[in-house]
């Protein structure tokens, strides 16, 4: 890789990371859930991209590594939605289509 490129300016990336860290710490102090969500997780994604791309040199890496990492993340997504649709229901209301009989709804309470 270093045959074809010079490395990024690491110090500059670091400054950016620190700036983002401050935002993600200050964000929740506004106590608006949606802002917290964005500053916490949105910025985590940005930060991790910056670390991966610059520090881990993913920017200059072959496509196959990107494929590999994307595959991992996609499979985790499959796992999350597959499991989530079931584990999210701990109340025992798996039997949704009660025809006319309301009692099975009451029993769930």
């Amino acid at each position, binding site marked *: 890789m*270093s045959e074809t490129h010079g*490395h990024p300016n*690491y*110090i500059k*990336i*670091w400054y950016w*990371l*620190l700036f983002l*860290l401050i935002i*993600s*710490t200050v*964000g*929740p102090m506004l106590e608006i*859930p949606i802002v*917290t*969500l964005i500053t*916490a*997780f949105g*910025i*985590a994604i940005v*930060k*991790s991209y910056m*670390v*991966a791309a610059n*520090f*881990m*040199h993913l920017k200059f*890496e*072959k496509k*196959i*590594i990107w494929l*590999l*990492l994307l*595959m*991992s*993340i996609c*499979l*985790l997504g499959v*796992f*999350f939605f597959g*499991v*989530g649709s079931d*584990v*999210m229901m*701990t109340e025992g209301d798996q039997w949704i289509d009660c025809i006319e009989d309301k009692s099975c709804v009451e029993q769930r309470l």
Partner: protein
Amino acid sequence: MSMQGPIATHRQATGIPTGRLAVWWLLASEIFIFGGLVLCFVLFKLNGTPGFEDASLTSVAAGAINTFVLLTSSLTVVLAHAAIEEGNVEKSFKYIWYTVGFGFVFLGIKTYEYTGKIIHGHIITENLFWSFYYTMTGLHALHVIGGMIIMAIISFDIKKGYNFQRVELIGIYWHFVDLVWIFLFPLLYIANF
């Protein structure tokens, strides 16, 4: 041990050096391990499991300082790699030990945090949040310790003049440990709604 190794190690059909390719595969499997744990945490959290409001009891300041420490250690390890590329062994050695030092700082703060939590009665069996808290940060801390040990070994190897490529490999691993923390920080410290 001899340092020659088989010819197989030095072939590069993909154009990526063998060591680096292997580290990427290792990290891919680590993504699944940490990913599985984090997703279980998220599932329970979204589910409104009682106890998860305890996230407000974790100290954001300690978490933020630890993030800062790890980010900085990431910088030093990448500088160590840059130094070894220029062939500057002394400088690289120095930066590697800065990184190990930051690792110690990280673990120190972690220990301080754990102690405080345990004194206040938030032990691992208190509820699911604390179970996840100790499991996830504990597993992460094990990775930090492992990385520090490997880094120490490598630092002496490069002094003796071999295995220079390993500075980059441990760097990639260390950045991954940093990345995991970047996600654990908002999950365990910030998001307490």
